[in-house]
């Protein structure tokens, strides 16, 4: 078991070698993988279960691998990677304990730059709202398989048994729960939300830029980032985003007025508070 000489790849590298690449970004690659051989061997027949009981097969996990950045000094790179894996895991843990729908954590190898997360079976919210599927066609071909390109997002929504208004209000509720727990997502877009198959859960994903803050400013900026993302991805976004805000406001209760006021300020000046840099 203990073997990690320089010549042989580490277990995490070997795991990545068996994984299926599903997305590559500038910061990380995303894979689908099984942590153990998915076929479980049931060796013993159990005395009180005459028929061999149905064994639970392994569920897949999503691996987020922050690969080496050759443009950084190796020791700086190692420490940044470690910190970011740890930071993302902590933000997810805080969300889980606060009842925000996020993927569970399944494996952490901070030194290897790998975070293993629960595999969420569902679709990106981006392709479920009008306009979003156009750019995503290449990655999500099944969305356009047998429906015309015009109304495919409504067909996809129908498949989940969810109305568009319900989806928008679920988004508002989930962001509100997160902000009540003083977590700022840092990169709210419709690509970073998924509707779980079954249609009951809206799951927030990608907490790579998340941080902890109770400031009204940070929450307002978080919403502003989402508003801009809506505007740039979905045509006629204003009523869509207003539905999101309405359910956000309802969930937030008395704290909403301060955030609303600040959101109006942020809209006038943009995301950066100071004009430096």
């Amino acid at each position, binding site marked *: *078991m*203990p*073997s*990690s000489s320089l010549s042989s790849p*580490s*277990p*995490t590298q*070997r*795991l990545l070698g*068996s994984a299926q690449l599903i997305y590559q970004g500038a910061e990380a690659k995303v894979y689908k993988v099984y*942590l*153990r*051989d998915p076929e*479980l*061997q*049931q*060796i*013993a027949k*159990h*005395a*009180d*279960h005459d028929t061999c*009981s*149905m*064994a*639970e097969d392994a*569920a897949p996990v999503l691996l987020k691998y922050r690969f080496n950045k050759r443009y950084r000094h190796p020791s700086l790179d190692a420490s940044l990677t470690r910190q970011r*894996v*740890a930071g993302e*895991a*902590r933000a*997810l*843990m805080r969300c*889980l*304990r*606060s*009842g925000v729908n996020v993927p*569970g*954590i*399944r*494996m*952490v*190898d*901070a*030194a290897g730059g790998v975070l*293993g997360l*629960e595999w969420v079976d569902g679709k990106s919210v981006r392709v479920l709202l009008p306009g979003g599927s156009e750019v995503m066609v290449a990655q999500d071909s099944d969305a356009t398989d047998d429906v015309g390109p015009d109304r495919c997002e409504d067909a996809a929504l129908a498949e989940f048994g969810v109305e568009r208004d319900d989806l928008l209000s679920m988004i508002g509720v989930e962001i509100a*729960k997160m902000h*009540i*727990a003083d977590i700022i997502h840092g990169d709210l877009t419709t690509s970073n939300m998924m509707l779980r198959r079954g249609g009951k859960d809206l799951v927030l994903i990608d907490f790579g830029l998340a941080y902890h803050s109770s400031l009204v400013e940070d929450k307002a900026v978080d919403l502003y980032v989402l508003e801009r993302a809506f505007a740039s991805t979905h045509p006629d976004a204003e009523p869509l985003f207003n539905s999101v805000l309405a359910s956000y406001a309802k969930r937030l209760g008395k704290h909403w007025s301060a955030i609303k006021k600040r959101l109006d300020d942020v809209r006038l000046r943009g995301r950066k508070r100071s004009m430096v840099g």
Partner: protein
Amino acid sequence: MEAYHYPQFNTVVYTAKFKDIKNAEALRSRIVKAASLDGADGEAERDAVNFAFIEAKLITSSLHLETAIYQALLSESQGSLRTKTIHSEIIWALNPTNNISEAIKLFGVSGRTTDLILVHAATSDTCDVQQKMHNIVDGRLVPMSTIPDSTNWANVKKHYKLNGELALMEIASDSDRERTVIDNIVISTVAMKSVMT
């Protein structure tokens, strides 16, 4: 008994759950004694109890246990075990704090244990693991899928400090839902222990 294959570690992990354990206290003192025996007898005795003995009542699902096994295998491969063996490391990984003796007291076998999970990690397929388990445990072998049936959910909540968390307050009325949420938080806690602070 079940076998989990981890090709990336060149390791096979055998797990089995036993119910109605009758020799818990004798087993516990046997494990303690084995550690201090000298000579060939000591070697044989240590080989006989070369398992992780885990209190099944604090385990919420087989994925909970598998997550602890995975993080322990990872620590071993990186030469960063916090305890002496892979088996004690699995018990340590299950405990939410870093105290080793507290981990063994809580998640190891005690005099009150009635439901027990045995784990053995090996580098190759070995056929006599189940016989070795039966040699030391006086209890009834049941499938790993029965783990949630013996879980003491109140104690799990206490030890993983879940009481008062928002995630559980909202759904307190729906016990099936609550168990799914507890399981997910507990699994995540074990998985991220290495970066918790």
